[in-house]
């Protein structure tokens, strides 16, 4: 019986969150089986070991073996992280962000950004979204014009900029205050999470016109390991980890997507909390994306790596005809 090696990672979710449980309860045991019991993961909830914006440095120094963190947390270090971490309004299908990352050059760029800021000590295994978000709204948003004067919670820099260009008023409030802010009309809409999560946290109870699927943000998560830890694995273990990651996150996202749609069906039948699930038409999505592209292009000027990220993203989006 070979000894089991345990990699300690810090995730971006709380211990009770769906994503956290799905990974730890379903996919970690699968990894152990795949590696014949030689490798397993200990996934620690967010902030368990270091603050959420400090995980990369902890991976660099070898305190954490790796992280499963949200990339946009590091936007303050380099705008490139904000760019790759949540390119607002870019994608039209839930699988596209992972495709961009794993097959469209995203992973290589992320590796390059990490190499610049963390001394070549962080190895990227992959990056992916884990859901396709729904926009929480108190009034129907059917067009880009409806965004004018709308107070929308969007704490991230790039998202706030895009909404501002659409004529909305971005408000930076912490996630913990989204519920009461919607309830009291401090904001009319909020950048929150997946449809099912918004349902479960009760946001749809106070905001009756969710836009689903959303047209706004798509948070990107990463799986990185300390380089020495990575080098210490066998070739087989490395190949398994890479494959495992792609499979686990695609499964997670598709599972969540079905949950989203099931709940949306219940709500559409008038059995839920919402009055109407607003469909944002493709023509308006294109219009909003055109506004966003201009904002991305300006944001990209903030650093050379952000520019490089932007170019790669545009190339990928062009293949799908999403941008010109």
């Amino acid at each position: 019986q070979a000894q089991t090696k345990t990699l300690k990672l810090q995730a971006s979710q709380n211990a009770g969150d769906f994503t956290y449980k799905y990974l730890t309860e379903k996919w970690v045991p699968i990894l152990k089986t795949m590696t014949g019991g030689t490798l397993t993961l200990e996934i620690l909830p967010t902030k368990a070991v270091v603050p959420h914006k400090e995980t990369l440095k902890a991976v660099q120094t070898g305190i954490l073996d790796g992280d499963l963190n949200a990339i946009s947390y590091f936007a303050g270090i380099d705008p490139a992280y904000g760019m790759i971490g949540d390119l607002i309004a870019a994608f039209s299908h839930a699988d596209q962000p992972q495709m961009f990352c794993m097959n469209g050059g995203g992973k290589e760029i992320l590796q390059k950004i990490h190499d610049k800021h963390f001394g070549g000590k962080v190895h990227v295994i992959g990056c992916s979204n884990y859901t396709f978000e729904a926009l929480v709204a108190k009034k129907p948003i059917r067009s880009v014009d409806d965004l004018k004067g709308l107070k929308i919670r969007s704490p991230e820099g790039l998202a706030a900029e895009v909404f501002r260009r659409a004529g909305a008023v971005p408000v930076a409030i912490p996630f913990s205050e989204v519920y009461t802010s919607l309830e009291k009309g401090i904001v009319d809409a909020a950048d929150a999470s997946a449809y099912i999560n918004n349902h479960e946290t009760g946001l749809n109870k106070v905001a009756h016109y969710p836009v689903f699927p959303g047209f706004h943000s798509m948070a990107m998560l990463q799986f990185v390991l300390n380089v020495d830890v990575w080098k210490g694995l066998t070739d087989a273990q490395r190949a398994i980890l890479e494959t495992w990651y792609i499979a686990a996150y695609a499964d997670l996202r598709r599972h969540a997507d079905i949950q989203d749609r099931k709940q949306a069906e219940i709500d559409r039948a008038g059995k839920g909390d919402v009055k109407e699930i607003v469909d944002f038409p493709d023509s308006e999505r294109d219009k909003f994306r055109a506004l966003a592209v201009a904002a991305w292009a300006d944001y990209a000027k903030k650093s050379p790596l952000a520019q490089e990220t932007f170019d790669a993203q545009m190339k990928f989006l062009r293949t799908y005809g999403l941008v010109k």
Partner: protein
Amino acid sequence: MSMHDTPSASTHHIGGPVGRILVAIDHFSRFSGLAVGQFYLFCAAITGYEVIARYVFHSPTQWAFEMVMTLCAITWLVSGGYVTLNKRHIAITVLKQYTSQRLQWWLDLFVYCLGFVALYMLTESCLDAAMEAIIRVERAGSAFDSPEPTIVKTILCFGAFLYATQLVVHILRHLESFWARAAVGAIAVACLIRLIGLIMQTAFGDNVVMTTVDAVFSVLQPIGSFGQSINIRSIPIADVTIVIVIALFVLMATGMSLGIVTMAVSLAVALLYFGPKGLFLVSSNVYGLLEAYPLVAVPLFVLMSSILERSGLAKDLFDAMSIFAGNLRGGVAVQTTAVAVVLAAMTGIMGGEIVMLGLVALPQMLRLGYNRKLALGLICAAGSLATLIPPSIIMIVYGLAAKVALGDLFLAGFLPGLLLASLYVIYTLILCHLRPDYAPVASEVFGGEEKPKMSRDRLVAVFAALSVIGGVMGSIYAGIASVTEAAGVGVVGALAVSALRRKCTWDMIQGVVRQTMVTVGTIIWLVMGAVSLVGIYNIIGGASFLKGVFTGLDVSPWLIILLMMAILVVLGTFMEWIAIVFITVPIFAPVVVDLAPAMGMDPDYIAIWFGVLFVMNMQIYFLSPPFGPACFWLKSVTPKDVTLQEIFGAVLPFIALQITGLILVMVFPEIALFLPTLLK
């Protein structure tokens, strides 16, 4: 006896140029502390402005949030120098009292030296992070995108440096022999050169200064690799846990400030497991704490209650409540409890309220010939309600550690607070009925009823203060403002009340700013030590180990809750509450949430209910000897002939009442959860 570490040995005067440098350092600590204290006023003003911008002008700012966080962080960190200069860090000095003068001198020296080593290591680790942030100009990454992380990381390094420097000053004044002083001075200078060398190395690459310094410090290398050489990772986590607990207790017993105790233990564990690079665990967690928005409410609530306190409100309130006393036997005790409940709704922290009651209510009770033990016990118990009846600093810190919504927690504390107050009143009335000599009525003493006269102005002021409290609490419950914003508005309201009382002078404002800066400075350095220990304990597998111990217990969930309560009571006899929160809550809270289905409760509500049980348990901690802070506070304002032993004896029946209340809320969770459920 004191809860602050007042030095037992005398300090020595040092003259000459060295002496002048030491005095200059003192002046700098004092000046910088008082200067940054003013930032709390700005924080209150900005928060108030944000609320107005949002509701009156419908245009919330992008900058208020980050600005307030930055200003608060600066104040917390820089106040470390002032707090150290005045030796106001919280420590347990009870045990030290029983040792000889000579031993005390050595203990003090040890405490200072270990403190210096810990703070120096923190400084160096923070310097690394600060230099990195400065070179990158690390920003918040938000819509406002200020360089807040760069500023806070730099100030953190400076704050730790100031604290360490002030400790060197203490050591030099503590020592008598010239050679000992020279040695300490040489070490301090070597450390300073090393810090400068590190800065130069980051800025200009390797240099001769750093190579020399590295050579000198290389003698310490075996310490860094000690953990590796004993193969620390092969030691079972259960054993490591026991060693950590013993180390904490032993260091606390030396009278070391509790923040340094937890920080030193954190640093030691980090060094053992990860070598020097492990110090990042400590500095990053300390930094992370400074970005916790709910903590901003702490100084604002302390500021609000200090202002109301200095407006002479306690006396007015006591007189206004005299309708409760009448000619009822035990009436003044009822009056005192009523005043305590109202004051509790204005204060978030235990201490000030007991002092106010001790100054206003105790003389009245003693003058009327009340039984002294009854009066002392009641004031300690009722005065402690400040942290159960919202607002409450303990709840803020609990909410932070357990990730619970603060508004709900505040609401949940209200009825249990009134329950305890009722128990105190019922007990007192029954006791006075059985023993009429315990509480004479006014007519028996003076032969007639005497009623204090209140001017219209004073009544208006009382009414205004009650409105401020009502407004603050109401806006939280109605969801109009966050807890932090409500606290900011509360400060503005409290200033208005004091203006109404014509007490709003420059001196008063400077007084409350200083008081707030010191109180919060002591709390924050304690919390910083505690959070770093939690992070380290998680990575070495401690949290999952302890969780396993609890979930492995094959007993009724009620027994597990009871066991947790018992552990809290025991810890509460000798430990400081912040240390208790951070040691127990991260372990207990997830276990309790997991117990929810077995107990037929909602996971969200069970965390709130447990939070209330926790805070009620801390009520017991305030009173229970030997470390009973409420008793220390009361002692500071009682007549000379009242001994601490007498106070400890007097609170015992009230501890029994607190336990009764705790059991009631445990058996009937509705007492806590009624209001939060109602207002959802």
